């Protein structure tokens, strides 16, 4: 077969092959992030489908580097544009107070019992987190991104990533702790 047979879309064919080799290995990662951000299967599938189309459209501008980070950033943006109700704006007011605003709840050390870490409890606790905290947890704990990678995906500073992770985990910890009879202030000094 001569090259003429591909005259219709030669660039597209090779672009597609490269796209499949470079981007599609992160199909699961894309879905995992989308699913946790929008919290239902149908919306997550729409987000991933749209994200891949966008990724393919912009693929010409992808200059190597970390394809996973690149794709996850697109997925995140697509989540927030397709599903405005999930957008972080609604929570923004409470999220710009960074480091010093760690919550102070939690059981006292003496009364400490195991956290409820069964799958069902964890899932509910994750879904209850506001999106800006949920996304850093999902990227860090499920996707195992480094702080630098999370910063690249979310467009935040590394310091912001770190403080949001701390806040997210403190919320999870409080959420998963058995109710304590005494409010603990023991752990601050």
């Amino acid at each position, binding site marked *: *077969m*001569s*090259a003429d*047979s*591909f005259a*219709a*879309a030669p*660039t*597209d*064919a*090779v672009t*597609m*092959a*490269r796209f*499949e*080799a*470079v981007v*599609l*290995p992160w*199909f*699961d990662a*894309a*879905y*995992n992030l989308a*699913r*946790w951000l929008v919290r239902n299967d149908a919306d*997550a*599938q729409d987000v*991933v*489908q749209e994200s*891949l*189309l966008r990724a*393919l459209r912009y693929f010409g501008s992808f200059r190597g580097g970390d*394809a996973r980070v690149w794709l996850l950033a697109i997925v995140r943006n697509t989540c927030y544009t397709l599903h405005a109700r999930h957008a972080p704006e609604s929570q923004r007011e409470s999220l710009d107070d960074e*480091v010093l605003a*760690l919550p102070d709840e*939690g059981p006292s*050390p003496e009364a400490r019992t*195991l*956290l409820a*870490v069964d*799958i069902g409890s*964890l*899932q509910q606790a*994750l879904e209850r987190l506001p999106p800006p905290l949920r996304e850093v*947890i999902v990227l*860090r*704990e*499920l996707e195992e991104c480094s*702080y630098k990678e999370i910063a690249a995906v979310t467009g935040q500073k590394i310091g912001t990533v*770190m403080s949001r*992770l*701390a806040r997210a*985990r403190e919320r999870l*910890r409080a959420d*998963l702790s058995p109710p304590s009879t005494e409010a603990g202030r*023991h*752990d*601050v*000094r």
Partner: protein
Amino acid sequence: MTCDETRLLLHAYLDDELDAAQSASLLAHLGACNACAARYADHAQLRTALAQPALYRRAPDALRARWRATAPVAAPASTTARPRRGPLAFALAAGFAGALLLTSPAWIGSLRAPGTADDALVAQAVSGHLRSLQPQHLMDVASTDRHTVKPWFEGRLDFSPEVKDLAGQGFPLAGGRLDVVGGRTVAALVYRRHLHVINVFQWPGEAAADPQPYRQHGYTAIEWSGGGMRYVAVSDLNEAELRQFVREYREGAPLR
């Protein structure tokens, strides 16, 4: 380190993002402060719990099927409907589990005049080159030292591949891996030229007389044989530079 600092930095420590000095300072505090130590234990437990695979949402098959059905370019390519051995089978045979997501680009099988087995082999070499560009897929042994690369192949192949040091000619060796061409396991050497990657596939055999360079879609493949071995070099380098590479490779002193 204070309790407040510890409350923040213990996360960076858990995430392996804290430098050695701060880590030591944090551990010293945890050793001396029960409240922070308890907090740390909770977060360590939480981290372990969140690592349970059941929390990871894998893409449903239906979504993959939907993507394949609507991917804009996959459709025209598949109309060639040429029976082919999918790279998937090759990838599995070679143990490249990471290549699972690759679909077989149908155009690969149609790159040159149809019908000849040799062309199919070159096409597969190009396919292997594309596959190798997948992250973590370029090399199984990463080394700029041919004395490391060559022994790596020992016991993995039924022949001893020729590995040449071309760093002095501007083509540093980057590593090697096993690949599959024509259903057999072959050696793939990875060389670099600036930002470009060159894959050299080799296996015992003879190329057809006077093989022509093959060009398509920005990739060039040059085939040759010598010393009972058959070679295909594939790259997105321009053809002149790839020809130069092949010349240097053929003339370069073999490693004994």
